[in-house]
């Protein structure tokens, strides 16, 4: 009989929990928050692969999120494509865009790559704001039709919740397979030492491009789902601050950690929500963007003290605590 690994139990538990949650939560707003977490998880897992496995920082990941969202919106609302076709088409288009942009961009490294991806994001937002006839300009794009499959229309938050989480789990499963495949090993080798990997016959640039295109495709998918879930998109959902928020999620979850990305996305989304709700109490009249203070400090603290992210780093710190060490020593003696 095949033994079931703890990770598989954890995965099964997650699926059951996700399936049961909407039965317990009857509040549409909370369901919506859970949809946001799923969308951010898809985004984060891609970014985490790019940053953790390919060792490349992308400060423009929201660009691909936006490309997917606007492509879905344009295809379904303007060109009258069925939404179920527009979504995969948008994801494919975004992956292609990622690949094509990756060809020149991955000639750069380190700080240059960070700045180039940031610049890409800035230019993308300017295009969204200036080409108002196509994109709706700064005020955004409304009336994006909901997804429909066969006779089933995903027009309520709960239906959308199940759809988005099903896709998210699919993306996570796909990412795990990639990580544990030949491609994943090659990527880890590149991260450890690009020169050594190339000397062993790994075409570093080709692998980086592949993982970048895959992350872009994920982001495009997330963008399409986001557009179909809230029926309205505007440039501010895809600007540089969102890219930085995504980097925060990846950092919190731990770079190169597929499961960590759920944790990172959930932590940041819930934290942001909590601050938005409570900030007004702490300081009368304060609201909105002040949550970025906390994100900023969180990023600094994690990068300085727990560079592997809250999950892995937190466990390491816990293990190093004197009490835990003593407990383990006592257990080992018996």
């Amino acid at each position, binding site marked *: 009989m095949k033994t079931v690994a703890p990770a598989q139990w954890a995965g099964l538990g997650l699926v059951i929990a996700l399936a049961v949650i909407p039965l317990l939560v009857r509040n549409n707003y909370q369901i919506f928050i859970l949809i946001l977490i799923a969308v951010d998880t898809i985004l984060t897992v891609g970014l985490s692969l790019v940053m953790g496995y390919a060792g490349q920082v992308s400060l423009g990941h929201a660009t691909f999120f936006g490309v997917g969202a606007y492509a879905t919106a344009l295809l379904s609302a303007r060109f009258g494509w069925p939404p179920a076709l527009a979504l995969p088409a948008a994801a494919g288009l975004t992956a292609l865009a990622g690949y094509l942009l990756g060809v020149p961009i991955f000639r750069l490294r380190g700080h240059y790559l960070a700045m180039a991806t940031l*610049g890409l994001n800035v230019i993308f937002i300017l295009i969204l704001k*200036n080409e108002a006839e196509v994109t709706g300009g700064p005020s955004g794009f409304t009336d994006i039709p909901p997804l429909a499959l066969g006779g089933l229309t995903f027009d309520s938050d709960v239906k959308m919740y199940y759809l988005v989480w099903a896709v998210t789990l699919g993306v996570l499963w796909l990412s795990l397979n990639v990580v544990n495949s030949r491609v994943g090993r090659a990527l880890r080798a590149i991260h450890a030492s690009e020169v050594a990997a190339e000397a062993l016959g790994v075409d570093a640039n080709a692998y980086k491009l592949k993982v970048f295109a895959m992350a872009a495709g994920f982001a495009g998918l997330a963008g399409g789902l986001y557009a179909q879930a809230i029926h309205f998109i505007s440039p501010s959902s895809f600007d540089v601050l969102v890219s930085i928020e995504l980097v925060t999620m990846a950092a919190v979850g731990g770079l190169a950690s597929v499961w960590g990305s759920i944790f990172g996305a959930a932590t940041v989304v819930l934290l942001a929500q909590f601050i938005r709700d409570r900030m007004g109490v702490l300081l009368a009249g304060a609201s909105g963007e002040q949550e970025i203070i906390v994100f900023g400090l969180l990023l600094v603290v994690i990068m300085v003290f727990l560079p592997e992210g809250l999950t892995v780093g937190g466990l390491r710190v816990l293990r190093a605590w004197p009490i835990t060490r003593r407990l383990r020593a006592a257990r080992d003696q018996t």
Partner: protein
Amino acid sequence: MTLLEQLAQYIVSGITLGSIYALIALGFVTIYNVTGIINFSQGEFAVVGAFVAITAAQKVSLFRGQAAVGLEWPLPAAILAGVIAAVLIGALLYRAGIQPARNASPLSQIVVTIGASIALRGLVLLAWGTDPYRLDPFSAGKPLRLLGAVVTRQSVWVMGLTVVTVVGLYLFFRFTLTGRALRASSANPGAARLMGINIQRMGLLAFVLSAGLGALGGIVIAPITFMTYDRGLMLALKGFVAMILGGLTSPVGAVIAGIALGVIESLAAGLLSSGYKDAFSFVVLFVVLLVRLGGLLGARRGPALERAGL
């Protein structure tokens, strides 16, 4: 207005704007040369400096009207207050964020400075809100005219102060012991340490110097364009583009490239499309990065480029 006069006008405003980019780029170069870090929160120094100076010089209400400040200090004192505030933040950033993570990967260090930058942005938003603020021009009076272009007195201040700062920095790096120690630690940190130079202190000094430069840039431009809490990112990006165009490690290159970038941006916004004003410098950056990695002015690939892995 003839085309020639228009061109002259664009060039004058471009040089004014470019002076700010030059000051910020100088800050980037200083930090990079000494510590090997690109400090993404460079633009936030300009914003914090400008806001503190405005608060010291004028009646301002903070925290959405919950605190009214009416210091109305004389201008030099207000400018000094702004610079000192930014310098303290720069020192804090180095001590609390950069120094503990000095052995981390460049990726982590980038993320630390990004984190610091958005935390500062949030802090400014919390204190000053989303309203645009403006500092009174440094001296009153009619604008001057040059070749048909209008040159405001504040533009003259901006250009003059930039020249004074650049010359002052040059003298500092060239002739003072501390300046030479800074140059030594950027040329060869290991050897500098063997000569008894405290590398950590030099890193701190570089952050302090850059924070001061950024703050000065933000303060002198505050009378020309309104200062808002979210301008830091764009200022930092432009400064960084100027740094790269100037060859990454060259202070002279950074200044020339900063001013050139301002002129290019102003011309492109005036002649092509003002909506895409901020995009032009990135288009220039992409072209330069992909065609010529050493920058426009840096003739060869220096050790810093090697260190950056290029």
